[in-house]
């Protein structure tokens, strides 16, 4: 093979390699999220109430404990799961019971849920029960949201701030 042909062949190889690398480095484009939808995320960490009431220790019980551990009350480590609901325009679209984290179930429950919603105005109602009661909710909040194309909204929960909030 003549050297001209060899160089031409090498050129073809490098051009093909460059084309292969360059093309798939950016193309084809990928549509991750549709233009006519918005994203709502319900994301928070929160610890439920202890699974039972704290119990007062008797004098005998306290005497058996080492001096540095003689707390007057015995409280359970475990926490109740959170019951969370989300309603879109009056219809409940999400309901879940989030178990507490941790080996002994004593950590906060974690909620991270994504909802794709159609663009436009929506009424969102969020409810959560973090106590030992069987029915009803301890926190409820309603939001009227005007969601544009690909808008991303986050509903968080701050117990010390009064409950559910929209994160800005």
């Amino acid at each position: 093979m003549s050297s001209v042909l060899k160089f031409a062949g090498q050129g073809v190889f490098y051009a093909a390699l460059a084309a292969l690398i360059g093309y798939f480095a950016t193309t084809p484009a990928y549509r991750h999220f549709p233009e006519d939808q918005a994203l709502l995320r319900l994301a928070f960490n929160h610890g439920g109430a202890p699974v039972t009431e704290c119990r007062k220790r008797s004098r005998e019980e306290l005497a058996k404990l080492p001096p540095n551990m003689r707390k007057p009350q015995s409280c359970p480590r475990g926490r109740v799961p959170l019951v969370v609901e989300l309603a879109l325009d009056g219809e409940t679209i999400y309901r879940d019971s989030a178990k507490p984290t941790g080996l002994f179930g004593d950590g906060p429950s974690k909620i991270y849920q994504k909802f794709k919603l159609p663009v436009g105005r929506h009424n969102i109602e969020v409810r959560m029960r973090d106590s030992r009661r069987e029915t009803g909710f301890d926190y409820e909040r309603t939001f009227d949201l005007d969601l544009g194309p690909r808008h991303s909204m986050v509903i968080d929960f701050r117990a010390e701030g009064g409950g559910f909030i929209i994160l800005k």
Partner: protein
Amino acid sequence: MKFIQSLLRRGFEPMEAALSRVFTPAWNPFYQLGAIGFFFLWIVVASGVYIYIFFDTSIHGAYSSMERLTYNQWYFGGVMRSFHRYASDGMVVVMALHMLREFALDRFRGVRWFSWATGAPVIWLVMISGITGYWLVWDQLAQYIAVNTTEWLDLLPIFGGTIARNFLTNTGLSDRFFTLLVFLHIAVPLFLVFALWIHIVRVSRAKVNPAFGLMAGITLMLLALSFIKPAVSQPPADMALVPGELAMDWYYLAFFPLLDSWPGNSVWAFAGLATLLLMVVPWLPRGSRVPAAVVDLDNCNGCTRCVEDCPYNAVTMMPRSDGKPFPSEAVVKPKLCVGCGICAGACPSSTPFRRAVEPITGIDLPDRPIKVLRQDTEQAAARLTGPSSILVYSCRYSVAAKDLENANIAVVDLPCIAALPPSFIDYVLSRKLANGVALVGCPDSGCYNRFGVEWMKDRIDRKRDPHLRQRVPRDRIAALWIGRFEKAKAKRELQAFSQRLAQMTPAHSEEDAGVKRA
């Protein structure tokens, strides 16, 4: 599995043959894919160091610093950025080709399991390095990757489901977290270099630098690509908007769309199973284990030629244990031996000329000793009845030469062409067992056993011990370094050799060369 391997080989071989013609075998990129991968890595490291000098490691400054580098310093900073990205992509391309080729050539069983299995973590580390790099630009693609990756990682109990909370809103983003990402993008490639060292630690004479011409060609290719299609950012990240259409780097981000359509736990299961499957391939299905070479101390004088020639570091020299007056002896590590027989081909004691005693050599294959090789040679020669006969020594990883046998052609199979002691060529020609000897091996620079073809060529050219004796007429030797599927070419070449032999004067004999028969 054999069907897939055969299919892949049929794809690779024509490309390799074409590239050997335009690049020469020594520069053939397919014969040094791993080395090219290393070269890409060094380019990534060097360009990364330059980019880091100008990079603002804060979440609000990262994007603008990259824009300044790309546009204000387009002539060098922009080029370095493109080098960084495209060399990273090139690394994935050659890594995939390297893996497929080794799989196609069945080079992952036996002692090669170590390099194969340690390749799987290398893939993970390359991917993590690339993905963390994309985060740092902090454009919409980075936002997409950051959110999806952290949501995926949060499914693992060790992360406690809190990483994705870093990427909820613009105000919630933390410079400290971003600094952690910068640290990861530097630390993971360091682990990658370490993993690559482990990957090749058992490979003797590992090729980590490609031919100089290839390095120049690849650099020029990257330079051209950098000017034709400079690497640029996408619009800046904005957590108030979900990224819509994205220009994806499919080399690193191909599995991300899976996270959009599959549950994250299924993607973890898929990734875990794929990695596991990749790592256990050497044992699935069970490869037949070839017996390791053995040393016969009575015939070993500690010359070290077998140590020099073994491509797998399976032979070492140890102090003499039998009291003979030599300082050392060859010792085989059976776990590292693939039974290629190159050591037997290199041993100066491997000669078929002995008649008074059985031909026994210093190091040999138990399943195909020199004695049997001589018997096979004589039996094959006995089948030759044609006027211009050729005895073919053929590597079993090259073309199936047995199919070409006829009155003029008889074939002796070998585990590697370098398993043939050069004295056998002398033996065939001087004893007039055939008019010519043809050596059929893997393509030049593409030897299944890495150096077999190279060593054999050097032995014939008297550049490497054991030399082929000077008296052997070189025009009665033909060498065919060809692939498995080039049967037609092999047939053509052997016919042409046969015709050349027919026009020559009769072959020399030992008597002509003044050698007395035993």
